[in-house]
Structures are given as structure tokens and as C-alpha cells.
């Protein structure tokens, strides 16, 4: 690391706190978001430990209710929503576009501090009053019990601003700051998915903003918007809440799709199959995501007609999602699949996310949902999508970009062991919950019938394996910072600009001169210099390296 890079050109604390460099802001987000994940994860382990047996195990029912609520609020608002866009989007997106920075660097820094402020306000709730109604804040419970809700809603409102500003920044950056030659059809699919995500962030988040304002005023002053005694309607709150929170699950999952697309292309050494379909399916999901919020409310008393329509549109979302999964599998077909740690996460994602996706279609079926509503089946589905989707992909992306971010390689052997632990732990934790749910175990309950004990114990044991795997990752990543081997500029043989045109770690300005793009993000057939079959990069197709293709000229 002798050359000047974004990490070593100025090491003072002030240069970090006031930085306008998207890479440093991304790193600061990484630290903040990881702390939220750690706190939320510890709460999850406490919840699972409590559920080791019926009745009280380690904590009171009251503490249990607060634990799962805080687990959810932290994981959703302070971890998953910002995780991939704000960390990897910030770090990678401008470089993949060939830009020196995002369009509005000061706004970018502001969004980080707004995020911190929001998280701090939300955590104040811990001290001043209890919040135990779950992350959905349904009225009238939320407007009648506990004062902590005031802080949580204010915190969510403030964090929403951060999310909006990040999304806005990315949309403008993608539209206005692409390098010469980087057409929409040459964009890395990560960019496409962040683009779709940003649209949802910009369009949906203001609605949760106003909902939180109204909820806050309802709790504080009693304005009657959600209170039937004053002419209001608690179901309207559910509509408002899900109008944001359903699109918000696409804020959580779309960036994960983008990472998986990048990983599939890079580690299969092939053009991602059906590139345009994969790209546009992200936009389709973003669009359809706005029209299905009512599938959270099948038993809320909304009209049967709207339930049927919401159910049908919910099925439709399965189509673009299926397009993606099929194309990812197809990308590996006849490719040179290289099973490094990031690719293991991509494969894991195919498995866990598909289970999450299919059970989502099951829950979209009206009659089935009435039976499964508010059971562990929903909990398991949600975690297969969020953890098996977002978190697994985020781990894949983190391993993929770690060498670029830090300039260090992590220990590959430990990486693979941890990946296997995470995979086993995750499935052992959540698969039994599908069975529990179909047998009638309600979600969020503190106590349960003795016949559910075995599956609950299994689930808790799985969560400990998962915990060990995640702490192992934390351990070897931190270790690599101090003892890791220096990373080459392009350890994975990827074709996107952050690997081909920047040093590792990148220069403070990313590029010495603006790159000129002459091929798509996964056009390996146009990149003989990388498809070199040197044995080290694992592609094993030495003879293809001999076929020299003039750049810019498409061949079969």
C-alpha cells in the first residue's frame, strides 16, 4: 500500500468525519450498520434462548416483548434498509459508473449523519419507555401503550430522510454521471438494481414519513386520524404503513439481486444470461411492489374485492423474480464457475431466497394466508427472504468487495468454513419455523405448548450455529485488516470498472482519467486480457485466451 489511496492520503479523524468522499462515507456506513446488525443479532439470540423451553427461561415476558421489537426495528430500519445501498452502493456505484463521486457529495455525508441521528433517537426509546408492539406499530396498541413509541416513530421518520437522500443521490448519479461509452445496456446489474431500489426509496419513504408524523401526533395529542372514537380508522394506519413497508421489502431485496447478478457473471466468467430481462425485472419488481401492500391485510377487514386484487398482483411479482432466478442458474450453465467465498454466498442465496420466494407466493394465496397469518410460517418466510436473501447477498458482496475496500485479502479457508456454518445455521434456525407455523405456533408469543418444544429447541440451536458463523466472519475480516495479504487490483478477474480501472484500494479521486467504456459489464468474450487461463484465476480455459478479439467487436 505504498501508493496514495483513499485510506492513507489523510489519516486524521477530522478528515474522516467531514469527508465528502463516497468511499469513506461507505466505510463509515459499514461500521455503523455492522454495529446495528451486531446489536440486533444479540437481541435475536436472546429471543431464541428465551424460546428454548415453554414458560420463563431467561427473561420476563415484558423483556421478551421489548427484545423482539427492538430486534426488528434495529434490523429493518437501521440495518437492512441502509446496508447494501448505503455501504456497497456508496462505495461501488460511482466507481462502477466511472465517476469521481456521487452527484451530491455533501448531501451524501448529510444522509450519514441523519441516519446516525435517527438511530440515536430510536434507541432513546430504550431508556425512556418501553416499546413492545413489534416493528409494525399497529394502532390502537401503539397509540395507547408506552411513551417509547414517540421516540421510535421520530427515529424512523429521521432515518427515512437519510434513505430518501441516498436514493435521490444515486438516481441522479446514474442518470448524469456515467462515463463515456457506459450505455444503459452496459451497466453492471448491481447499478440497475440500485437504480430500481432508489426509485422505491424516493417514492415510498415519504409516505412512511407522514405516517410516522401522524402516529406521533396521534399518540401525543390525540388528533383522531387513527382513532375510531374520534372518527378515525386504525385500518387506515395499516394501509399507510404497508404502502411504504411493502415496497420497503424491495428496498431490502433488490440490491441483493444486484450483488448476486454481479457475482454470477464474474464467478461464472460469462455474460449474465438474459441481461436485459434481469435488468428490467428489477424495475418491474419496483413498480409492482407498489401495488401489493394489501396482502399484509387479508384479515384486517379490508374488502374481499381488494383482497382478491392484491392477491393476484402478488402472484405477478413471482414472474420477474422467477426471471431472475432462472437467468442466474442459466448464467452458470457452461460457464467456468469459480467457487470462491463470494460465489458460495451467491449459490446459497439461490437456495434460501428461492424458498423464501416460493413461500411468499403461498402466503399470497388468500385462503392459505388466513390459516397461516401471524404464525411462525410468516416469520420463517420473512427471514428466508430478508436474511436468506438480503443478508446472505450482503455477505457475498462484502467478501467480494472487501479486497477493494481495504486492500487486504481475507483467509479463504476460514471464509468457506464460515459460509458453510452460516448456511447450516440459517436453515436449522428457520426451516423448523415453517413447520411450527403450519402447526399453529403464533408469532411473537412468549410461551408455547409443550408439543412445540423440540422444534423450538432445534431452531434455537440453529441460531447459535449461525451466530458462531457470523462471529467467525467478523473475526477473520478484522484479522485480515492487520495480517491479511495485500490484495491485487483485480483478484477475482472481474470486468467492472472498480476492478479494471482503479488501484486497490482506490485513489482518492477513483480514476486518474475518466475511463472510456467499450464493452458491457460481463463481456468476457471481449476481454482476452482477463480471460488468460493462468491457472491462478481458476477458469481453466487456456485455449480460449488465444482467441484474441478486438475490443468493441461482438463475436459469438
Amino acid at each position, binding site marked *: 500500500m505504498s501508493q496514495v489511496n483513499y485510506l492513507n492520503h489523510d489519516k486524521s479523524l477530522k478528515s474522516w468525519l467531514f469527508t465528502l468522499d463516497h468511499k469513506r462515507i461507505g466505510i463509515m456506513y459499514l461500521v455503523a450498520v455492522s454495529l446495528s446488525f451486531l446489536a440486533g443479532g444479540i437481541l435475536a439470540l436472546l429471543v431464541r434462548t428465551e424460546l428454548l423451553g415453554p414458560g420463563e427461561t431467561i427473561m420476563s415476558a415484558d423483556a421478551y416483548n421489548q427484545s423482539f421489537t427492538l430486534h426488528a426495528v434495529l434490523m429493518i430500519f437501521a440495518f437492512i434498509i441502509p446496508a447494501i445501498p448505503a455501504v456497497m452502493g456508496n462505495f461501488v456505484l460511482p466507481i462502477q459508473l466511472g465517476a469521481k463521486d456521487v452527484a451530491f457529495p455533501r448531501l451524501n455525508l448529510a444522509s450519514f449523519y441523519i441516519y446516525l441521528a435517527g438511530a440515536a433517537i430510536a434507541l432513546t426509546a430504550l431508556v425512556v419507555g418501553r416499546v413492545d408492539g413489534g416493528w409494525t406499530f399497529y394502532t390502537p396498541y401503539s397509540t395507547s401503550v408506552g411513551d417509547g413509541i414517540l421516540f421510535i416513530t421520530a427515529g424512523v421518520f429521521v432515518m427515512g430522510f437519510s434513505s430518501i437522500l441516498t436514493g435521490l443521490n444515486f438516481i*441522479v448519479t446514474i442518470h448524469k454521471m456515467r462515463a463515456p461509452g457506459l450505455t444503459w445496456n452496459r451497466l453492471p446489474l448491481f447499478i440497475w438494481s440500485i437504480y430500481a431500489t432508489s426509485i422505491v426509496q424516493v417514492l415510498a419513504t*415519504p*409516505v412512511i414519513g407522514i405516517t410516522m408524523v401522524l402516529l406521533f401526533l396521534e399518540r401525543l395529542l390525540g388528533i383522531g386520524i387513527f382513532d375510531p372514537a374520534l372518527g378515525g380508522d386504525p385500518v387506515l394506519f395499516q394501509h399507510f404503513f404497508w404502502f411504504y413497508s411493502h415496497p420497503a421489502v424491495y428496498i431490502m431485496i433488490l440490491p441483493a439481486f444486484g450483488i448476486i447478478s454481479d457475482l454470477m457473471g464474474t464467478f461464472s466468467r460469462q455474460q449474465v444470461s438474459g441481461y436485459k430481462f434481469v435488468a428490467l425485472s428489477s424495475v418491474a419488481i419496483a413498480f409492482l411492489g407498489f401495488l401489493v401492500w394489501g396482502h399484509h391485510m387479508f384479515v384486517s377487514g379490508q374488502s374481499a374485492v381488494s383482497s382478491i386484487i392484491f392477491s393476484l398482483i402478488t402472484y405477478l411479482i413471482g414472474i420477474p423474480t422467477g426471471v431472475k432466478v432462472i437467468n442466474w442458474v442459466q448464467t452458470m450453465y457452461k460457464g467456468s464457475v469459480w467457487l470462491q467465498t463470494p460465489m458460495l454466498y451467491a449459490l446459497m442465496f439461490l437456495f434460501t431466497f428461492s424458498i423464501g420466494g416460493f413461500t411468499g407466493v403461498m402466503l399470497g394465496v388468500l385462503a392459505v394466508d388466513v390459516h397461516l397469518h401471524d404464525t411462525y410460517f410468516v416469520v420463517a418466510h420473512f427471514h428466508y427472504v430478508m436474511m436468506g436473501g438480503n443478508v446472505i447477498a450482503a455477505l457475498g458482496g462484502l467478501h467480494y468487495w472487501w479486497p477493494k475496500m481495504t486492500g487486504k485479502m481475507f483467509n479463504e479457508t476460514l471464509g468457506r468454513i464460515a459460509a458453510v456454518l452460516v448456511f447450516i445455521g440459517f436453515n436449522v434456525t428457520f426451516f423448523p419455523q415453517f413447520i411450527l407455523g403450519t402447526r399453529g405456533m403464533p408469532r411473537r408469543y412468549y410461551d408455547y405448548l409443550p408439543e412445540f418444544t423440540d422444534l423450538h429447541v432445534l431452531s434455537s440451536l440453529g441460531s447459535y450455529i449461525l451466530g458462531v458463523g457470523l462471529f467467525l466472519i467478523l473475526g477473520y475480516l478484522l484479522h485480515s485488516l492487520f495480517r491479511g495479504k495485500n490484495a491485487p487490483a483485480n483478484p477475482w478477474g472481474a470486468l467492472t470498472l472498480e476492478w479494471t480501472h482503479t488501484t486497490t484500494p482506490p485513489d482518492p479521486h477513483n480514476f486518474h482519467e475518466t475511463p472510456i467504456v467499450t464493452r458491457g459489464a460481463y463481456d468476457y468474450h471481449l476481454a482476452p486480457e482477463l480471460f488468460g487461463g493462468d491457472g491462478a484465476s481458476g477458469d481453466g480455459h487456456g485455449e480460449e485466451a488465444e482467441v484474441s478479439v478486438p475490443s468493441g467487436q461482438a463475436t459469438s
Partner: protein
Amino acid sequence: MDLKPDERTMASTAEHPAHLQHHFVSSDQQFDAAKMGMWLFLITEILLFSGMFVAYTVYRVWHPEVFDGMAALLDWRLGGLNTLVLLASSFTVALGIHYAQVDNRKGLVTNLVLTFLFACIFLVVKYFEYSAKIEHGIVLGDGFAPHGVSHGVDYATYDVMFAQQFFSIYYVMTGIHGFHVLVGMGLFAWITVRAVKGHFTSAYYTPVELCGLYWHLVDIIWIFLFPLLYLI
């Protein structure tokens, strides 16, 4: 600070003027990006208000008689006056942008000051409307208890079922709108100072343009609030 402009942007030539930030290639790119960002922000503003418009619509359909009866307490003359004031201010800010484009600093400053003054008038009128109601117990939330008589209006007759909810919607919608007017005044104060200092020329007037866009949105939202709350 690590935002070190490279040598090319340090030289304040015609090709790389001082206002051009280091990560943009040209002034046009910077201007287009800023404007697009502002439009996106305005979309978020519309969605913020849309939640309240939905609540208004739902409850108007549910309790039409309450909404009809309560709207009578809102003075359409004051609301109309404010509508005219805001329309005038939208005109002056547009004129200000025009003067910025033709390098007329005096015209720019004059119109920005006028816009600021119109915003003040709007809030003063709003203050009188609010205080007349609060004085008679028409407040936001649980303290709602209309009482007293003034200017021939018997406020106690407005103490009907669900009246509190109508006035909640009124206060929240106009209150959040009023907050946007206040923010707009801050913005105009800031760009007026910059205009006086001569920061804006026909080559660079992005902040004026952006504040203008914002102000038109504030105006448009009022154009919807006024008939919905005062007239129908």
C-alpha cells in the same frame, strides 16, 4: 478536508469556472444534475402530502356532513387572499430567475425580496386565522373544546362529533404547508444575500432556479389545500 480539487478545476478558466465542483465534467452536467435532484425531491414532497390528502378524502367520504359544516368556520376571504399572495410570489420568483439569466442583479434582488415579503404576508394571515380559532378552543388534539362568541359566530355550535378530526386534518395539512413556507423564507433570505454579493450570473444561477422550483411546489400544494378545506 479531502475534497482536493485537482489542478484543472483550480484554474478558474472559462472552461472550468470556480462554481464547478471537482467531480463534474461541465457546468451543464452540474446544472442538469442539480435540477434533476430537485425534481426528485419535489416528488417526495408530493408523496409526503399525498398521505394527508388520502386521509382527507377517506374521512370526507365517511363524514361529509362534518366536513361541510366545519368548513364554514374557515374564512374563504382570508384563504383567497393567501392564494393570491402565493400566486404573486410564484410570479416574482419566476421573474427573479429571468433576471438572473439576463445578468440583471438589481432585478434579481428586488424580486427575491418581494418573494420573501409575500411569504411573510402569507404567514401573518395564517397566524391570524390560527389564533382566532385557538382562542376559542379549536386546537389540535385532545384540548379541542370550542366555546365563546365573536364576530357573530357561536363557536360552541361547532362542538359536534368528529369536528376535532376535521380540525386535526386542517391543522396538520396547513401546518406542514406553513412549515414549508417558513423553510422557503429561509432559503430566500440565503439566496438574496448571495445575490447581493453577486454570486449569481447568467452562467451560474442554480440555487435561484432550485429555490424557485421549490417555491412553485409550495404554491401548488396550497392551490389544492385552499378549495379542499375552505371552499367545498
